[in-house]
């Protein structure tokens, strides 16, 4: 009897833990958003010295990069004029064929203020939320390519599930051969393109882009580059390893695509 009495507090805590995990009381989980919202200002203040320090430390490489980018910018400006001509021609042709144009996105610039506190998940906390027009499911990108999608929105923050999270899946295609598959993340932070037909034409160096299927990610966003091609364990399909187009571990600013 005495032994049971001694075990009672432990049993109560274990029961509480199990109930909290399984029942997911809305009262407890509703406190989650105000907690992160309230912490945002502290995180921004604490992040500030690190960001400033990085700016000073990387001044030399930033200067060299600036020179290279200026050169690239001049070349791109010429290309832009050429592309503008092509775009106008494309618009005219689309109107002729009565196509619907679906690229009316506006971009919201957002700063990364935190990362997932659990090691096997890959998500970011950014400083824009409901008040800035962010909604669940919105696509997040950088100039280099796809980052992920919004999975949780608070008043002044949002959580972004990165494409290398094990929960993430992106309908993708190989740009060169148009072979389609699903890109998903792994616990080790790698990206893998699954379910490619067994005789598909995929080579190392090919670019994987979003296919637009499923409606979450718009078509044509760069997902990553193929670094390894292999067969799935069942031998029925091919899969390949991708290196993400975006350096997901070094993100500081991202763009949210708002329709």
């Amino acid at each position: 009897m005495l032994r049971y009495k001694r075990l009672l507090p432990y049993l109560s805590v274990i029961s509480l833990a199990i109930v909290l995990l399984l029942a997911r009381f809305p009262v407890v989980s509703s406190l989650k958003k105000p907690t992160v919202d309230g912490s945002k200002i502290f995180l921004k203040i604490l992040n500030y010295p690190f960001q400033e320090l990085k700016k000073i430390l990387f001044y030399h490489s930033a200067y060299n990069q600036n020179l290279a980018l200026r050169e690239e910018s001049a070349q791109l400006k010429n290309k832009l004029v050429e592309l503008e001509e092509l775009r106008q021609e494309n618009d005219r042709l689309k109107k002729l064929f009565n196509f619907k144009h679906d690229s009316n996105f506006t971009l919201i610039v957002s700063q990364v203020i935190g990362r997932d506190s659990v090691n096997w998940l890959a998500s970011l906390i950014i400083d824009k939320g409901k008040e800035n027009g962010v909604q669940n499911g919105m696509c997040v990108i950088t100039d280099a390519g796809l980052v992920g999608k919004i999975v949780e929105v608070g008043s002044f923050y949002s959580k972004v599930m990165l494409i290398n999270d094990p929960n993430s899946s992106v309908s993708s295609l190989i740009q060169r051969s148009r072979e389609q598959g699903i890109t998903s993340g792994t616990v080790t932070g790698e990206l893998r393109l699954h379910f490619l037909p067994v005789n598909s034409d995929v080579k190392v160096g090919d670019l994987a882009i979003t296919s637009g299927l499923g409606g979450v990610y718009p078509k044509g966003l760069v997902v990553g580059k193929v670094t390894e091609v292999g067969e799935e364990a069942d031998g029925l399909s091919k899969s390949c390893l991708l290196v993400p187009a975006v350096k997901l571990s070094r993100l500081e600013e991202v763009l949210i695509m708002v329709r």
Partner: protein
Amino acid sequence: MRRPVFFLASIFGVLFLQIIFSNHFNPLRIQPNFLLVAVIFLSFYADFKINVAIAFLAGFLKDSFTAGIFGANIFSFLICAIILDQYKRYIYREDLYLKVILVFVITLVNGLLNLVIVISSISIPFWGSFLFIVLPESFYTTLVAPALFWIMRKCALKYSI
């Protein structure tokens, strides 16, 4: 009154350390579990009820800053609080080596509990996750634990906890 304020300030301070650390220094995508180290440290200064409250708060805060299953960290932290209560009586509060070994064991248990919960909702390989995430996290946490213990001990002495 000083004691609860110290406990709360420690947990929130370590939470911000955890978030900032993961944002700026995350080699190999692994981050140490600072919050668990804080829970272990504080467990030597309080009784079971307070430890459960601290573990609940730490788990809740960790769950708030992840996109994973809400409640997973509350669960694993509460279980760790029970294990800590069972074993802390055999460890002298000032013995750093034993406390560091305790950190390794508790982080490993915490990681395994979390892994079991995650596996129930996502299809991830158990051994791969254990070898590449849980084990490195335990080693990493054990490595940083002495430094965090030292800082927290200094603070505890300063505020006569």
